[in-house]
């Protein structure tokens, strides 16, 4: 315990020592001020006894001294308060910023151990505690000095009276200590109940639709009544304890004064002490009350602050469990991704990915499909190296991600997360989050690509509209589109969509994917909800047909993973839904085995790939996915639609022919010239967003 005590105290002292000037000034002035204060009653004594009593000393000199002492005390107290306060605030600032730094360095595993509420709690209440402790500390040290000097002078003035005074100190100490041990848990409990009340209110407010929808207002009021009652009981307990100890703490010194009055008066009548001594004594006694009470308080605060310091330091000391790599991802590295026999689990006993292998070539769009908990999101978390695999390797551009610097790796990846988290800032700032110095034009281009420009322009202040906490003033679909624009703007080589268009309606989703197809030329793209709108069942085989036979790749434990699949075969209605399932034989018939990853029996994985097609001029070498052919798997219930077939035929014959991106032109000019030839205008390259190259995209 002693060692631990020293540990936190020393660490804290270390932080304080960074501000030596403040420490020295605060401590020095505190000690000096208290020393002077300890002498003041002596002056009063002299004035009463010698100046007024016998007139042996000069009134001017001694009252002058009294005033001088008061001024000195004033200055020193000012210095102590000011620099002591600064010290506390400086240390608080340092701890807070260090905490922030540590948090942003934490990897996925450490993040999982963290809850937002806890962190913010630490930052507010714990730092506040530390601050108040640091603030009180110089004063306390000064007070101890005051206490000792007062005691010495008192003993010198009258040993007998000192004994009386000292009798008060232990009593005070005892009461303060008792009140601390009894009061602290009571306060703690009451605070916990207050938090519980807040919890119930928070639940009822954020879940108001559910409460009202089920007509459960009664239930919620009941819950509140119950926690409110417990809070009342808890508070009443602290009130009772307070009413017992606080008056006692105030009355005991008063009792000491009464005792001293009796004893001192008695001694004075017998001429053993002078009147001045008597007055000085009672002043000292009054002066002692403060320090003793303060000491008791510092002990209480110290206990809490200690817990606070330890919690804050614990957070600051948290080391990320992954180490940054050393090599930069070369700028010309191919945008390929490979998962090589990857095993990973959030906890050691439950692997989420087990022997997962997947190879994605440059320019491919891959949809990762599977049931809840099958590890789809995990795949998207391993790529930017939020977690490290426990076995196998993840390679980007042929480099193991563990060798690459996080900075260069993440610069190459555009992530659109499942929850499409936005910061409470303007729309513009949110889109430009990954590229803070982006021009308005770039931002708008990205927003257009994500089909967000239209609704953003309709917002009250357009791009300058603030989106509110977590972006909640926007609808889910709008948030997702902004998150998408944010990723597009950074011009990533790999685009990771984690179910990123789930809340967008069908038409818009379709447009997004149309736009993405052009934006993401030459980039990898992984999405839960496979990019295009077309009902999913068909896509895998469509792609499969196009693929040359490949190495037989079965992940461990795959057969079990297929359980949910065959349902499609005998339930035609369900097949319409967007569930990617390929009865294995179809894939095999197509000359390719679909790849399934997974072990724990719930994993389904499909690969969908198509060849990249290279077009471009000059240094803007653009890879762009060829158009998906429309092959209809035989026997599919919704195959026979004349319109479709025609479209499919059209598509198959003509992937894309387009004019090579020429020198930058305005989008409108491009649109006009392309429209003339019945084509669409699109931005050919985002590799140099400042000089977008426009081109026409035509379907022959």
């Amino acid at each position, binding site marked *: 315990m002693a060692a631990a005590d020293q540990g936190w105290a020393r660490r804290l002292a270390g932080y304080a020592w960074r501000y030596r000037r403040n420490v020295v000034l605060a401590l020095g002035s505190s000690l000096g001020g208290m020393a002077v204060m300890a002498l003041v009653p002596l002056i009063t004594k002299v004035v009463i006894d010698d100046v007024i009593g016998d007139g042996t000393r000069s009134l001017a000199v001694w009252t002058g001294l009294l005033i001088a002492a008061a001024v000195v005390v004033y200055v020193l107290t000012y210095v102590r308060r000011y620099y002591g306060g600064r010290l506390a605030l400086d240390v608080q600032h340092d701890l807070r910023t260090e905490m922030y730094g540590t948090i942003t360095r934490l990897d996925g595993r450490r993040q999982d151990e963290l809850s937002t509420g806890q962190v913010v709690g630490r930052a507010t209440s714990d730092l506040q505690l530390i601050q108040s402790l640091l603030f009180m500390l110089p004063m306390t040290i000064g007070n101890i000095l005051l206490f000792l000097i007062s005691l010495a002078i008192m003993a010198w003035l009258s040993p007998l009276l000192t004994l009386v005074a000292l009798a008060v100190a232990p009593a005070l100490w005892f009461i303060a200590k008792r009140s601390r041990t009894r009061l602290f848990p009571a306060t703690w409990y009451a605070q916990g109940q207050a938090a519980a009340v807040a919890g119930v209110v928070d639940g009822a407010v954020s879940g108001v639709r559910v409460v009202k929808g089920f007509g459960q207002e009664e239930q919620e009021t009941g819950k509140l009544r119950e926690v409110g009652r417990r809070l009342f009981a808890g508070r009443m307990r602290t009130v009772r304890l307070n009413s017992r100890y606080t008056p006692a703490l105030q009355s005991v010194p008063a009792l000491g*004064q009464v005792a001293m009055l009796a004893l001192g008066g008695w001694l004075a009548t017998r001429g053993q002490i002078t*009147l001045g001594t008597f007055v000085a004594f009672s002043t000292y006694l009054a002066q002692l009350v403060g320090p003793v009470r303060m000491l008791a308080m510092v002990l209480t605060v110290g206990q809490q602050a200690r817990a606070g310091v330890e919690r804050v330091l614990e957070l600051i000391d948290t080391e990320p469990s992954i180490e940054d790599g050393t090599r930069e991802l070369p700028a010309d590295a191919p945008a390929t991704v490979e998962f090589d026999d990857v095993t990973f689990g959030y906890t050691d006993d439950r692997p989420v990915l087990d022997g997962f292998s997947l190879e994605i070539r440059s320019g491919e769009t891959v949809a990762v499909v599977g049931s809840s908990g099958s590890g789809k999101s995990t795949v998207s978390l391993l790529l930017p190296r939020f977690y490290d695999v426990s076995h196998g390797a993840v390679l980007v551009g042929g480099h193991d991600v563990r060798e690459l610097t996080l900075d260069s790796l993440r610069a190459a990846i555009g*992530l659109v997360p499942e929850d499409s988290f936005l910061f409470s800032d303007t729309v513009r700032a949110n889109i430009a989050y990954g590229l803070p110095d982006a021009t308005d034009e770039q931002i708008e281009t990205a927003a257009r690509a994500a089909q967000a420009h239209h609704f953003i322009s309709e917002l009250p202040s357009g791009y300058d509209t603030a989106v509110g906490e977590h972006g909640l003033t926007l609808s889910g679909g709008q948030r997702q589109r902004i998150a998408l624009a944010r990723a597009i703007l950074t011009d990533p080589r790999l685009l990771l969509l984690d179910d990123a268009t789930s809340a967008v309606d069908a038409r818009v989703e379709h447009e997004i994917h149309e736009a993405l197809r052009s934006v993401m030329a030459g980039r990898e793209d992984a999405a839960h909800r496979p990019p295009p709108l077309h009902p999913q069942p068909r896509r895998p085989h469509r792609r499969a047909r196009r693929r040359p036979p490949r190495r037989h790749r079965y992940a461990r434990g795959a057969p079990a993973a297929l359980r949910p699949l065959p349902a499609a075969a005998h339930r035609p209605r369900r097949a319409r839904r967007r569930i990617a399932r390929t009865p294995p034989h179809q894939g095999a018939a197509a000359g390719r085995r679909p790849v399934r990853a997974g072990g724990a029996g719930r994993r389904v994985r499909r690969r969908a790939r198509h060849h990249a097609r290279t077009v471009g001029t000059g240094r803007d070498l653009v890879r762009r996915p060829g158009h998906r052919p429309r092959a209809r798997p035989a026997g599919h219930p919704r195959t026979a639609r004349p319109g479709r077939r025609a479209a499919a035929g059209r598509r198959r014959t003509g992937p894309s022919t387009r004019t090579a991106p020429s020198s930058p032109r305005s989008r409108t000019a491009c649109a006009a010239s392309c429209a003339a030839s019945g084509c669409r205008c699109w931005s050919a390259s985002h590799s140099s967003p400042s000089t977008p190259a426009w081109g026409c995209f035509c379907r022959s």
Partner: protein
Amino acid sequence: MGLLLPVLIRHGIDEAVTRLALGAVWAASGLALLSVLAQWVAQTAEMRMTGRTGERVLYVLRLKIFAQLQRLGLDYYERELTGRIMTRMTTDVDALSTFLQTGLVTAFVSLVTFFGIMVALLVIDVQLALVVFATLPVLVIGTYFFRKSSVRAYELARDRVSVVNADLQESVSGLRIVQAFRREHTGAERFAERSDSYREARVRGQWLISVYFPFVQLLSSAAAAAVLIVGAGRVEAGTLTTGALVAYLLYIDLFFAPVQQLSQVFDGYQQATVSLRRIQELLREPTSTAAAERPKDVLSLRGEIAFEDVRFQYGAADEPEEALSGIDLRIPAGQTVAFVGETGAGKSTVVKLVARFYDPTSGRVTADGTDLRDLDITAYRHRLGVVPQEAYLFAGTVRDAIAYGRRDATDAEVEAAARAVGAHDMIATLEGGYLHEVAERGRNLSAGQRQLIALARAELVGPDILLLDEPTAALDLATEAQVNQATDRLTGRRTTLVVAHRLTTAARADRVVVMDHGRVVEDGTHDELLALGGTYARLWRTFVGEDEPAAV
């Protein structure tokens, strides 16, 4: 009050000391002892009294505010931020509590002490009292300016610290994004900047405190010195006793504290009035869905819903666009209707009106032919099953979460409901199964898991009308299949209104209503609408992949 006595006694004793009368010393000591003990008892009693009364008031106030929150319509919640509503219940109530419990008492004690000492000083010696009072204007003026600027500094610091905390909170919840977009450095810089500006504000406040509090001490020392100087002459002249002078010096120590305390109390009073005003505002907030005068109880419903020329607009009447402009719709009992349309077309509004989260601006919504406004709102909602788009779960066990709409359900009923919607297998995989602890808002479950539980929750109440806001939107494909299957079973026998974001959902419904700009533009079965070749057919074609709209 009690504070006065010891010092008054000392005045007596000093006379005794100078006259060497021991009896007076004992008498004074006895009196002093009595006064101290009396004060002790009085203080204890007073603390208990004010504490109890204060807590009672707060308890009642909390319940009252909460009950009012429960009465308020959804519009209030959509207008106000959660954080703000929470502040009413926590910070505001606490400010009131602090003022009631400590502020009032402190104010009383300070005032009495202050005037008591004032009287005592005057009684002992008028001339000396004037010397002491001469310092008062300085103190009052100093205190006024200190309060004024310190309140400003304090408010500034409070604003800035909330910015700092919000930044931290956001950075933690969006940590993945911060990292993925490599904003750790700029983020840290901005955070340090914000933290620094908070520090600055606090240092400024600290400076004010450092100047003011020692200043009060200085004043009291100055007053003491002045009293000594004047008093010394008076003692010499024989117009003042030494004891009186001593008593004076002791009084001066006590004299200045109440002024400081009073200014603090005043601060608390100001905060309390602001809080009280906010709480009053909340309590006076009219509910937008007022209860009927003679509400009709609802035991069960056939489930026939009708909209009769319903118009609705959110917010104030000067809002430019109506969310619904003249909806006429009749949904026979047992039918499943899907509402399709773009964001803002009004499909969610329709469902909200049926749940009576809002009342129509004009026209009426009826269930089984009765205007919803005439029904007992709680009883009516007990007959509803609501599945919101983002499944909200309350903290507790999975079992509690499912039984939310029917607290008295047995374990068997809960399990049956879970099985009915296909949630049972998922729950079985959770640690602890039905006793698995659900974190606040169900954060520790995946979106799919939450949605399944929300469906089971709706199933358990056995609703006559089911309102679904596209529960499948956030589900992965396999779970979606499960949920769809369950939904089919759930909806088959009930009137169901589905807000469909995905056309597959619409395709499975008995009837599809296509909405646009607050109007019904198409209405019919999936096949009818396809044959019609209108909006829906176009949407459907886009959906299934005949993508001519995007090709141009």
